């Protein structure tokens, strides 16, 4: 039933942003209050007709006019509304992702009382004439991987809540959910024994390699290499970046853990730790090998690979 409905909606026009809401995508039905007023109108109509009471009839018909206009106005509040894009920054499983939805009101009319609804989350907002807005909807995540949020409903019951007009759309692409990092991971696998690709000996942790570079504003005083500065007639500071820091080999096959998920959690924790220590690492997931490299893009590539595994 649900799939059939989805297919039917898809047949009626675009279902993913960027899209402009047109009449084929906008649905409208009376709200519960609308049905109640309909009942009231029926009672008024019957009473007035029976007593042949023309002013009573006129009152009834005024309510009918209000109702029919409010149907049009609810529709108008959505018509030509643009959903520009959706997107969400990746989060770790268990965190709440913020699904950002960009909307644009190209018209010169205000659009008050718009609502965005996804599962149980509801956001109410208004768009001024020709205003763009980005609305965040929280999405709960549970498992790593790509999370496809359900149909998002953009709806309104303006101006008096008799009719609700709505339209459905899906996110442009699913939300990336990284694996949840292990809470107490084992220490990083520093001693790699049988790695063939190893080129240099690991130094002990106490040794600290540094180079010298020119002083820049903001460098702390204790890093200034006073003696060297004296020799060079300019201020030099110790640079703690280690171009040849020891490379880590993070291998799924050699990661401790009862099952795959535990091992992935440990690997995730390690990757994050390595990133924090600014050490280069290679991630080997059996079929996929990433690195050696370091930095933000490398981290994201690794996390994504772990999520997709």
């Amino acid at each position: 039933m649900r799939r059939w409905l989805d297919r039917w909606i898809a047949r009626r026009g675009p279902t993913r942003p960027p899209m402009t809401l047109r009449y084929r995508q906008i649905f409208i039905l009376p709200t519960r209050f609308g049905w109640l007023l309909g009942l009231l109108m029926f009672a008024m109509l019957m009473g007035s007709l029976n007593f042949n009471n023309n002013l009573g009839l006129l009152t009834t018909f005024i309510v009918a006019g209000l109702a029919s206009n409010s149907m049009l106005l609810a529709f108008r509040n959505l018509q030509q509304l643009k959903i520009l894009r959706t997107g969400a920054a990746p989060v770790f499983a268990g965190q709440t992702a913020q699904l950002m939805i960009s909307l644009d009101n190209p018209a010169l009319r205000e659009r008050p009382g718009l609502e965005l609804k996804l599962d149980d989350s509801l956001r109410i907002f208004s768009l001024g004439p020709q205003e763009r807005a980005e609305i965040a909807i929280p999405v709960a995540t549970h498992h790593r991987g790509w999370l496809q949020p359900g149909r998002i409903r953009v709806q309104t019951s303006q101006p008096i809540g008799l009719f609700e007009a709505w339209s459905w759309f899906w996110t442009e692409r699913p939300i990336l959910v990284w694996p949840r990092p292990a809470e107490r991971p084992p220490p990083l696998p520093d001693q790699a024994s049988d790695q063939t690709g190893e080129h240099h000996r690991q130094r002990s942790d106490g040794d600290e390699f540094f180079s010298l570079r020119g002083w820049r504003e903001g460098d702390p005083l204790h890093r200034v290499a006073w003696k060297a500065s004296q020799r060079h007639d300019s201020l030099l500071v110790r640079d703690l970046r280690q171009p040849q820091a020891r490379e880590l080999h993070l291998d799924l096959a050699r990661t401790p853990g009862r099952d795959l998920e535990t091992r992935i959690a440990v690997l995730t924790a390690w990757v994050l730790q390595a990133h924090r220590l600014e050490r280069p690492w290679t991630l080997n997931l059996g079929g996929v090998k990433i690195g050696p490299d370091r930095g933000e893009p490398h981290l994201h590539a690794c996390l994504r690979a772990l999520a997709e595994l």
Partner: protein
Amino acid sequence: MKGLPPFNAVAWTVAAFVIAAAPHLLAMPVWLAGAILAVCGWRLLAAHRGWRPPPALLRLSLTGVGLLLIIVAFGGFWGRRTATALLCVMLAAKMMEMFTMRDLRLVASVCFFLIATQFLFNERLIYLVYLVIGSLVATIALTRIQDMHARTGQRTRKAEWDGVRSAAILLLMAAPVALTLFALFPRLAQPLWGLPDQIMDGRTGLSDEMSPGSISNLFLDDSPAFRVEFDGPPPPPDQRYWRGPVLWNFDGTTWSRPFFSDMPSRQFVPEGLHSLVYRVQLEPHERRWLFVLDFPVRGPEQALISVDHQMLNRQPVTTLMQYEAVSNPDFVDMPELSSNLRALATRLPDNRNPRTTALAAELRERHADDRELIQAVLRWFREEAFYYSLRPSPLGRHGVDEFLFDLRSGFCEHYASAFAVLMRAAGIPTRVVTGYQGGFWQANGNYLLVRQSDAHAWNEVWLEGSGWTRVDPTAAVSPARIEQGARSVIDGPRHLLDLDWIQNLRNRYDRIQHLWNRWVLGFDHARQQRMLERLGLSGMSTERVAVLMMLVLLLVSGVLSWFLLRPKRARPRSEAERAWLALLKKMRRHGLVKQPQETPLEFAERVAGRGVEGAEEFAELARMYCRIHYGDRPDETSRFSAGVRQFSPA
């Protein structure tokens, strides 16, 4: 419960209720209305102070008290007043727990229902104001409640006014659909179900009995009873006797209708030389009778003409009713009087009014002829010191004696009653007819306005050869009453506001009321058919009218949709800008379209480059526009618009 509703939403909802309930509140006992208003006041205060709803038990018991008050106020009598008062009390009770959007909406929407019920009591023109204001405030309340949900409304005075304005526009836009439905919704020729008599709680107007004071009470009431339009000139004032209930039975104080008064007449009244054709617009009086002139030939289809030539509708008249009637004043009613009827028409209660009986015997001795006897009595009324007065004293057991010999001052019902007793005592069959006499001729509107204060009572005596013959003893005492209307009989104003200019204003207002009645209230099945006939659609069945209504409704909705859904355009702000747009339109017609990124001068250059005739002038106009719009030469505006008007590119 998520927070309390904002003050403005509550305030508008309470206001909508108070306005919709106002006429109902005025009609109920003061203490009951006070109790309802007190709850409204409490609700406003609660919204202002941010109070929570009272505990359920308290609400329940207060509601119970409200129901008890209803029973006390209306004594368990179930009528429309009771029903509407109950509705008011229930809504007030709802107000105590009106703390969610759903409850607020419920109260605001039932206000429309409350407004509609008021029209069961009164449909005068002035209530159009009530309808408009009541609907407006209820609509405002509904939009405020919606805002409270959307939480879009900033609570500023400007936002509040914008809300009022948008609600007014919403209501105004409801008018096309409402009027279409009003004109074309199929009306019923017959009610769906009968109107139970109990729902009629009676209102001022002529009753079916006559006792001293029953008609003089109406004398102070200037509200219209009915209006009449005549085909041809109206009858002279002394012929304007509007026949209502005919009374035969007398118990000493009260005259009442006989058992046969609802039976259909077996006499056929033919049309005569002096037949009158007229249309009556009868204000609802909740009784079955329709007022007609003597003697009705025919009336509306559903009405019957009784033995006493009273016209009776099938249902009580609860809403303004229009009917056409024909009367033949020359008709002779009952040339032969059966002995049964003669006995009934001369019956008097025993041991009452001895002096009157003696007088009747004395008169009978002197005048053997009935006609002479009647003339003698009328002469006596005229020549002796009888007065027409509004403030008659209460009468005792021998009321007619006291009236005729001691007080000699009274209203028409006293004269009619005394005259009937005197006649019956003399053996002349007599009955009392109540109704209205006279009316104010609205020369501008071409109709006769008959007010409640024109209520009257007169007699009919049965005479050999002329049947039942009208005799009006009041006319003998006070001819002005008949000639100039009821108001003329009393010197000076009847009450504080009874001034001539106010009376003139009232007459003027009544002309508008008359049109309102004719076109709005009296719009029924027959009138709808007539309207359609005029549009060339005669003999439409109910189904066809319904189909027509749907078609017109589609059309109207289509136009409305176009109007509402068309994209809003930025309006050019200045005259120069408007002229410039007109100029661009002229260029467009020749295939020269200004690109959005082009400045006026760049466009002019491009036009010149295309070698179009008139490019020079166009460039000059573009320069002028730039000077006006961006420079400091707004004084050139009129020259610019004139230039645009003359400009025509080849």
